[in-house]
């Protein structure tokens, strides 16, 4: 299954598919994400379809963040459902990621930081 991505200006929004992200499918998703985790990428993961994430799913998001971060890019999240939000708060990952309510807000945050740069 190909990932649904949407690139506007230089920001790529990736819709994380399915309701569940756990040990059964993180490996496949990791392979699919390889293409978008390019050096310096400005990414948004849209999590609005996800209802359940386990530790391996969290691990995938964290390793994705590290990968783009190390090359000057960033990864922001949007559209979290209540159970996913509760999980992020419990494991403190709400302080690792920039999290936005909507896709637009996440995209705009990149535009705002662009404007802020000299």
């Amino acid at each position, binding site marked *: 299954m190909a990932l649904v991505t949407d690139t506007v200006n230089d920001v790529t929004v990736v819709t994380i598919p399915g309701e569940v992200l756990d040990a059964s499918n993180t490996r496949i998703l990791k392979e699919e994400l390889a293409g978008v985790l390019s050096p310096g990428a400005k990414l948004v993961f849209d999590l609005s379809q996800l209802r359940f994430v386990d530790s391996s799913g969290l691990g995938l998001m964290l390793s994705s963040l590290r990968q783009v971060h190390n090359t000057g890019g960033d990864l922001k999240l949007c559209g979290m459902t209540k159970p996913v939000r509760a999980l992020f708060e419990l494991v403190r990952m709400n302080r*690792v990621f920039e999290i936005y309510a909507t896709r637009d807000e996440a995209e705009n945050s990149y535009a705002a930081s662009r404007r802020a740069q000299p």
Partner: protein
Amino acid sequence: MKALILAAGRGTRVQPLTHTIPKPMIPIFNRPVMEFLIDLLASHGVRSIMINTSYLASEIESYFRDGSRFGVEIGYSFEGQLKDGQMIDEPVGSAGAIRRIQDHSGFFNEPFFVLCGDAIIDLDLTTLAAFHKERGAVASLAALPVPADQVSSYGIVVAGPDGRVEGFQEKPSQTEARSNLANTGIYLFQPEVMEMIPSGVSYDIGSQLFPQLVERGLPFYASQQPFRWLDIGRLSDYYSVLRMTMTGGLPGFTPPGTEILPGVRVGPNVRFNPRACRLRPPVWIGASSTIEDGSALIGPCYIGPGSTVMSGAHVEESFVFEYTRVGRMAQLRNSIASGRFCIDRAGTTIDVAKADLDWILSDARSNAPSQFDLEPLMEEFLISR
């Protein structure tokens, strides 16, 4: 006077709390909900109490035993059977429970209270008994007004100006509702009601016995005396009750432990250096717990006996069950946590095993989980951001 406490339900609406304990045993600090009811009954001179049990019956029976510790005498009516070494639940309904006890011994030979075992109340039972007697009622119930926009969450009682019950509406919409009086599940009966409860079948008070009383025009009244009714119908209700207890809002409740600093109470055998932690009272730490240096306890919070709060963990306005290991990366805010689950104030539940979160929450009696691979990476990000 006598009483029956209904305690046979499965508590499906408050799972996962009720996977290992029946609903009446849900703890408020160190005391199960039902203990508050037994204390209330005892304080109004009710000494002879029956409890019907079924689901996880032994959890209830082994705690309350014969009742002497609570100044009352308690008997159990077990609804089920032991088959091939397994307890099989066979609940008979709330009215069926009354009938079963009556058929056994004729126990209900005087007016008797029936209370649901899963709410905390401070109803003046003596006043309810006087109300019942003055009207010559065969049945009385305690009703409480609820806001009009919440009637759809309750069984609604329709009563005349003198309190006589005219009918019931089960969770009506706001427009359909003919009253805003909620049935709180607290009843007082004369033994005569027994004639209307069939033997040997499952029978319900609210949906079967009460309509009969109304239909036959028997004296059946709704008292409207004010009282506090803390019903643990949903997980979010449980958080509210705990929060209220932690902030001193539960009258007559003495918090456990010895005060070692203003607002900081600990049980015996606790390993804890208050100066090495971030601390905001009120905080309670149960016996034999370990609070590692470098953790944060931001009150009001309660750490159950035998728990470990690891260095770096953040516990804020939360209630932690006994034998819970709270991991270094854990950030509990407005939550109820155990080694098996975490429930936030809105009732959103995380299943710890399913989400593979033993590095965040685990049973303190199990071996400490290996460090999660991503912990060092998370720390790096947490410092940089």
